[in-house]
């Protein structure tokens, strides 16, 4: 391991930006805010690039101990940073995509009153995300983990005067707490049994355990608890419900936090803990099953959504499922590969969706779009590339990573592969459905799509923008270049990003981090023909999905409605997201609310605590009320009391004397 004194600067730079804008932004000019907000993450990105340029697959990990933090007996957790091939991939994805989204946000949020606040939160998010990625121990990682949760909460509820945004923020925060609880218990177990949370020390301890006392039960429970945490942060079954609601936030937030970076933290954490998972096969299986089911489940919900951002949200959940499927079958590098390409094309999809929403004046319902191809050609082109990429059309980025995952899953169990392929078909279908509804056909939105009350999350900002910018929304229009620039760059990355995986180069790059010596070589030699066959299948289902979407939404646009009608209850279940939210409300929320109201509020709080205080006060008041009558103002009654008092004292003394 090589010390690298620049490592700590990468997370701290965005923190400085967040602090400056957060403290002084209210009274600064927008230009100054923009400069600060872009320079610091930009510098972090450049520093990451600089470090990456000197880092190869053979490099020993970098580390840097910044300061002592917690020392208690032999246990210690420090502010120390760590960079290996795995964190490098994450680092580049987070700083690179993050920086692009910062640029985009300048255009998107320019006219919002909370511009400085937004930029400050974004920088704060970058700080926590980079801390998470670069941490050398689980505890510092947990700080980043909680911090991105906080930033996510702040940004989902950015338009907090809107009730739905405020409660979506709360929902995200609370659901994440459930996951964090599992994560914390896993950390406690690690401390109790291994006495350290430092990655290097901990993993070498686990690896040096002899097979007999390998502690499979212990490692399995730790692995499962870590997975609970990952499921919360990365929106897997059963904790995925917060992510679709998180779309209440501004669109750049959805792109950065709820698609490209933060939600992949769970995948990163599982990959980082690969030493634990490799020794806990049961936990691995659970990870794979959860991932696979989530991928399919979320994809089916995505079919029936009409809100453009909700489709993308369920698509994100589904793609995260793929990544967990990869981790669960032991193909950690394939999962991280998909994480990276997904950051490109899903970030792009969200930014393009933001551009569309911007262009049509805040409308998010795809049924009121259509025909935007001619109005906003750049957005159409870039979003088209992203759609091809996510659908798995070769040679775009998504094809390489998804195919890698499916192939590796097939090697473990064909059921994973089958569900994965079905999901790939559905993915392709709903993404091209989105494209045809949005860009194909004729424009269906009225020119006066301006009634702010009935519009969705981003409408308010758009409304402000429209009135300030001086352009009405009679017709959809293309976005400014400050927004299109990031789209184009991400489109390029989605086009060519997959080629880093050509010939398993990506896997070899990560091999040092995952300590997995060329086990792929065996696969390659024996199963080349199988691999090509599987590739053929997944590509053809992608095209099938495209064709189906074309038939239904471009050739015969009246057909989907009739199909939906004939499916009846099934369609209603899907379009209502399988009533999962309602089920959770019934099973968890309602008992908690009613229990709190009946027992905690009316029972304990009102019945015991308030009652004690009130009754004490009442008793004192009643006693005084009675005693008050002594105070008659009549001197002779006072005299009487004095005499009575004297008599009592004398009687007492006599009685004592007699005794």
């Amino acid at each position, binding site marked *: 391991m090589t010390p690298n004194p620049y490592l700590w600067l990468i997370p701290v730079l965005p923190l400085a930006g967040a602090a400056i804008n957060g403290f002084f932004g209210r009274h600064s000019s927008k230009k100054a805010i923009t400069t600060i907000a872009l320079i610091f993450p930009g510098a972090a990105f450049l520093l990451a690039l600089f470090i990456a340029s000197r880092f190869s697959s053979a490099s020993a990990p970098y580390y840097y101990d910044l300061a002592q933090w917690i020392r208690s007996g032999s246990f210690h957790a420090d502010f120390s940073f760590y960079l290996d091939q795995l964190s490098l991939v994450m680092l580049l994805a987070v700083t690179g995509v993050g920086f692009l989204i910062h640029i985009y946000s300048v255009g998107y949020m320019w006219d919002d009153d909370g511009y400085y606040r937004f930029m400050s939160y974004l920088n704060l998010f970058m700080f926590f995300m980079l801390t998470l990625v670069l941490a050398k121990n689980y505890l510092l990682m947990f700080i980043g983990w909680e911090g991105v949760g906080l930033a996510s909460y702040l940004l989902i509820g950015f338009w907090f005067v809107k009730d739905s945004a405020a409660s979506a923020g709360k929902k995200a925060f609370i659901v994440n707490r459930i996951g964090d609880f599992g994560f914390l218990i896993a950390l406690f177990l690690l401390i109790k049994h291994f006495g350290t949370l430092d990655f290097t020390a901990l993993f070498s301890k686990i690896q040096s355990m002899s097979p007999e006392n390998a502690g499979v039960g212990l490692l399995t429970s730790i692995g499962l608890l870590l997975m609970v945490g990952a499921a919360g942060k990365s929106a897997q079954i059963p904790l995925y419900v917060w992510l679709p609601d998180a779309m209440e936030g501004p669109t750049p937030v959805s792109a950065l936090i709820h698609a490209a970076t933060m939600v992949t933290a769970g995948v990163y954490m599982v990959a980082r803990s690969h030493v634990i998972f490799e020794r806990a096969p049961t936990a691995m299986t659970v990870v794979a099953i959860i991932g696979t089911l989530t991928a399919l489940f979320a994809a089916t919900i995505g079919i029936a959504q009409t809100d453009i951002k909700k489709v993308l949200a369920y698509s994100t959940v589904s793609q995260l499922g793929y990544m967990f499927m990869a981790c669960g079958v032991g193909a950690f590098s394939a999962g991280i590969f998909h994480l990276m390409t997904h950051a490109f094309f899903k970030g792009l999809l969200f930014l393009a969706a933001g551009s569309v929403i911007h262009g049509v004046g805040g409308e998010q319902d795809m049924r009121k779009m259509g025909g935007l191809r001619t109005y906003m050609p750049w957005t159409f082109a870039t979003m088209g590339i992203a759609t091809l990429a996510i659908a798995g059309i070769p040679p775009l980025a998504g094809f390489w990573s998804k195919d890698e995952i499916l192939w590796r899953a097939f090697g473990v169990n064909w059921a994973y592969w089958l569900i994965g392929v079905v999901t790939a078909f559905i993915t392709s279908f709903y993404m091209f459905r989105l494209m045809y509804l949005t860009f194909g056909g004729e424009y269906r939105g009225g020119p006066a799509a301006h009634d702010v009350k009935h519009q969705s999350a981003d409408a308010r900002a758009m409304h402000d923008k429209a009135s300030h910018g001086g352009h009405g929304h009679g017709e959809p229009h293309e976005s400014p270049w400050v927004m299109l620039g990031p789209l184009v760059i991400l489109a390029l990355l989605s086009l060519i990003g997959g080629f880093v995986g050509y010939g398993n180069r990506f896997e070899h790059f990560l091999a040092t981090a995952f300590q997995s010596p060329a086990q792929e070589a065996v696969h390659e030699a024996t199963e080349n023909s199988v691999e090509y066959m599987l590739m053929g299948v997944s590509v053809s289902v992608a095209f099938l999905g495209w064709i189906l979407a074309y038939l239904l939404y471009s050739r015969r646009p009246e057909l989907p409605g009739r199909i939906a009608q004939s499916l009846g209850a099934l369609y209603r279940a899907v379009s209502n997201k399988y009533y999962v939210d309602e089920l959770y409300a019934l099973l968890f929320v309602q008992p908690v609310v009613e229990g709190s109201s009946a027992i905690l509020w009316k029972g304990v709080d009102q019945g015991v605590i308030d009652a004690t205080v009130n009754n004490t006060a009442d008793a004192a008041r009643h006693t005084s009320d009675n005693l*008050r009558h002594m*105070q*008659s*103002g*009549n*001197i*002779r009654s006072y*005299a*009487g009391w004095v*005499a009575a008092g004297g008599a009592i004292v004398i009687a007492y003394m006599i009685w004592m004397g007699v005794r």
Partner: protein
Amino acid sequence: MGNLSNVPLSYYLVLSGILFACGVLGFLIKRNIITVFMSIELMLNGVNLSFVAFAAHWHHLSGQIFVFFVMVVAAAEAAVGLAIIIAVYRTRETLNVDQVNLLKL
């Protein structure tokens, strides 16, 4: 003149008790503020009597010293008390304690 030391102590004490009881009764029953005031003096003197009786009986001076103190205090009290009574009479134009009842809720 008969020898006072022939009179038993209990006589003095009974007389002292009677004087004190008269004072208490007057203090409680009388409405005229001056009478009440005099009743207080009566109680003080009842106590004084028992003090000197004990002092003579035990051949001890401290009881008599106490009586001087009480008399000084009583004199001071009489001066202040009578001044208050005059002030009360000037404002309320009555000496009936039942009508001097502003000190209440």
